[in-house]
């Protein structure tokens, strides 16, 4: 995904592991309409996983 560097992705993955989140950065018991928050059934658009997580957790964005 353009705009999200590898370091940020690594930080997000680590944050998910350390905080026991599900693969989308939400609480592990979270369920979604259609089974994933990354696919919009109204528009057919698919979001990048990291883009979705950063929208909800902007504090994880890379600080340069």
């Amino acid at each position, binding site marked *: 995904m353009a705009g999200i560097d590898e370091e940020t992705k690594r930080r997000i993955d680590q944050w998910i592991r350390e905080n026991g989140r*599900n693969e989308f950065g*939400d609480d592990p018991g979270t*369920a979604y309409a*259609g*089974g994933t928050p990354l*696919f919009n*059934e109204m528009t057919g658009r698919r979001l990048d996983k990291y883009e979705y997580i950063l929208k909800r957790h902007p504090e994880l964005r890379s600080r340069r």
Partner: protein
Amino acid sequence: MRHLVKLVMAVALLGTGWPLVRPWIPSGPLPAAVPAAGTSAVVPGQIVVDARDSLSDADLDALDRKYGVDFRLNSVHADDENLLIADVTPGTEAALLERLRKDPAVEAAEPMHRYSINWTPNDPRFKEQWNLKLIGAEKAWDKTRGKGVVVAVIDTGVAFENDDKCYRARDFGETKFTKGYDFVNDDEHPNDDHGHGTHVSGTIAETTNNAEGVAGLAFEATIMPIKVLNEFGGGTSADIADAIRWAADNGAHIINMSLGGSMPDMAMRMACRYAAKKGVLIVCAAGNSGGGPVGYPAAFPECFAVSAVGPSGKLARYSSVGKQVGIAAPGGDKSTGENDGILQNTVLFDTGQREDDYFSFQGTSMASPHVAAAAALAMSMGVKDAAEVKQLLQRAATPQKPAEHYGAGVLNAEKTVALAEDARRDSFWKLIFSLAVGLAGLGVGAVRGRVGGLLRFPFAPLGLLLGFWGPDLVFHWIGFGSPFNILLHSALIPLYLLWEAESKPVYRFVGTISLGVALHLAWDAWQAHAPFVGVLPMHAAPWLYVNAAVGVGVALVAWARSFRAAD
């Protein structure tokens, strides 16, 4: 008196054999839940005239000249009764028909009607619902529309209430709802503040044939709205587990869950198991991971996972896949055009304003309710066992490979309903068979002492009934999909009983049980309807026929031993 007894016995024995010969005898269908309905429409510019039979060709020519119309025979077979048709200027039919009806040479004059066998709803945008045509909805509707079946939609709620805060979506005016629950806000008003749940419910039971919008597949079914997802489309596994149990305890026959997550959750699994044990069919969207694995709860064995296809019947790119997929259904594929989504009424709040309109969505969320609705159609035909309905859906599916993508194939509602009708007829004839055996037993009992030998009251009717009904009685208890049904549908139990038998009455009893089991297996093989079809990795017929033959063998051995054994 003896003649009367003989007559009763003859009728009863004839009844006993009837189910076995019946498949060769052509007959009409049992009364359907909905009488076969047709539609007719007046054909503009055409009329039908039944002229007097005595008119000659010259008289018919005179008729042409008199009305300035070219009357012609409807077919080569119509010359005896002078059944004529004619093309006229559209708009002039009524006046011409009025003149013709007064003509003594004419017996009847009517506008031309075109009849269609299939009932078609008058919803103006039904023609855009390629998905319903793909699965044969119109032919299914000739037999049933889902009446009497409750489908719980566990989702974002449904726009179904009308008060100062809530609003019923425009094409749900006559949709039937039963009491639901909102697990997000903990109240009894599970209204939709997202739009997803209403769209899903529309596919199942949107008000149909109301000259508005589009149709739902099982539009006479009842929706149980249950809200577990919030206005952003997210929710917790705890609420979903609660909702599944609540639906099962409050009369749902089918649960549709167009939701899920990537991680299994034990509480949700236990809730699914609870509902399945209560006989609820749980239909779930496989997920929209784009070729990734099936999500949960769809991947639980208690659930029926549905993948999605587009208008071509091919797997949509967004669909999840895996060995847990049970069946595929239309979910839309807007990559080939906006019209290739699934069109239903819903209420959206994207712009901050309430927007009640018809929207084209795509996803396995849209595929799952097609299957739930088709299951409702089957259940409304009288097939109540969830596992049996699941098997009917899979048997009826149009085969498509690979199984990881399509499961048993693409949903076929028309064939599902036809198979459900067959299954109901099967049960009906089994009941007749049992009644006939019972009557025969009474007859045998009445002349006890004169018949003697192999069949002696009460062992004969009891053994036959036990053998014939036993496997079905147990499978209704253990469930249609249990592997234990393989044992029940075999000659192993009669063989074991033969092994243990020691006295004359027991040998006779075992003989009649074994004959009952053999008849049951032969019947199931004949009807291609065995409860372990999905369990055994082979076609069921050879197993059933071989075991039926062994059952007959066991019966013969048991009776032979009864002659030699002491009482």
